[in-house]
């Protein structure tokens, strides 16, 4: 009798598989529907900008893709699998810095880098390089709690970039940055999309922002959410 061996490690996704897809997805908190019946696909290699007013459901949609919350209805797939099974391929940056205030930037990054060394990803980035790439000094010994909002934001971006994700989810990544820093981060993210992936394939970015004009050079696709619903793309002006 022969049995099919189960792969010990998650296999690299095929290029034809979407980086993320939501199918008839809704998320209800109590009596409030934050996301309503959204169906959307994020192809591999795309950079999608999610726009919408406050409370439109942008952050909820990102959290659904990240697998931090489960949909009330519908399904969410990341690389054709559940988001939980693909955690090693994606990284998520939220409004909050997701860093320990008591640790310095390099200590925070070293810690999170260690958590990604699970054997399935041989390409964990270098925390020092990640900090340099966002314009921070890796030898800064001050704890993150003493950083300015902008520095925390940069450290947070370095935290997600160092895990070398194939799918990068960014929730308002430029909210605390000045215009010059924002442009620098956009250049960095544009460059990030071209970084080669160890297992092949293309990098995907989904970001929410209110600074559409600034982020426009990064995104090749724009989606708008309103009251939890995905709006049809605007007709190009004649």
């Amino acid at each position, binding site marked *: 009798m022969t049995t099919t061996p189960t792969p010990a490690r998650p296999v690299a996704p095929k290029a034809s598989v979407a980086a993320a897809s939501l199918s008839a997805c809704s998320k209800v908190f109590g009596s409030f529907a934050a996301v309503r019946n959204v169906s959307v696909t994020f192809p591999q290699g795309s950079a999608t900008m999610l726009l919408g007013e406050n409370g439109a459901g942008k952050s909820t949609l990102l959290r659904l893709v990240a697998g931090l919350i489960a949909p009330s209805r519908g399904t969410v797939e990341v690389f054709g699998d559940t988001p939980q099974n693909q955690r090693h391929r994606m990284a998520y940056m939220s409004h909050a810095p997701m860093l320990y205030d008591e640790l310095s930037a390099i200590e925070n990054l070293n810690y999170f880098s260690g958590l*990604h060394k699970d054997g399935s990803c041989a390409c964990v980035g270098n925390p020092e390089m990640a900090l340099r790439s966002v314009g921070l000094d890796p030898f800064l010994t001050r704890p993150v709690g003493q950083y300015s909002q902008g520095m925390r934001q940069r450290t947070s971006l370095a935290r997600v970039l160092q895990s070398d994700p194939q799918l990068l989810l960014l929730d308002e990544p430029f909210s605390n940055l000045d215009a010059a820093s924002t442009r620098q981060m956009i250049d960095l993210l544009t460059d990030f999309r071209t970084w080669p992936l160890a297992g092949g394939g293309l990098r995907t970015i989904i970001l929410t922002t209110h600074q559409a004009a600034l982020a426009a050079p990064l995104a090749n696709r724009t989606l708008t959410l309103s009251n939890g619903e995905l709006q049809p793309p605007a007709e190009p002006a004649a």
Partner: protein
Amino acid sequence: MNYLNHLWHHLQKDLRIEWRSRDSINGMLFYALLVVFVFSLAFDPTANPTLARQIAGGVLWVAILFAATTALNQTWTREQRNAVLEAQRMAPAPASALFLGKVLANLLFVGLIEAVLAPVFVIFYNLHPLGETSLLLLVMPLGTWALLCNGTFFAALGLRTRNRELMLPLILIPISLPALLGMINATAGILTGDEGFNPHLWIRMLAGYDIIFTIICLFLFETVLTAE
């Protein structure tokens, strides 16, 4: 090997943060000393050494339980601050390693408090154990582990509740009652030398309790961590 690396990573981080903030240790030490002091005022242990030996075990564990509760309430608070817990949930590392790392860190913190508390306790209560004193080396870690393993788990369970400081002792104390009974009776047996207490039996019971609850907590922790 990977699991141990993750575990070491979490433990190292918790120790480093505590070393810098000293949030848990200072609070616990003050609380534990206060409990021992107040109990010693309530009755005169020097006047009745037999009574002192009989109740000392209970007083000691009450002091440790109350002190540990203050630390356990804070153990997940620093993970919630800045939404770090979400980064933990996104990390492809086993959730149980995070839990075990926290329990081990808390064990070191509470162990340190016990090391300070023990001589103070002996002096305040004028204690001269009549039983097998070396058994305390088994009772103390087993009892502390029982409190901390359950405490860390239920502190995580209460993360999303509004009154989590109140919820923790309300859940932890009833669940830990068999363990508390074991710790108090074993300690009383060692201090009094009374064969009726049979410390060996209570130690075996404590070890069984620790094994069962550690396994349950390790298995259920991921569900608790990912719950909305």
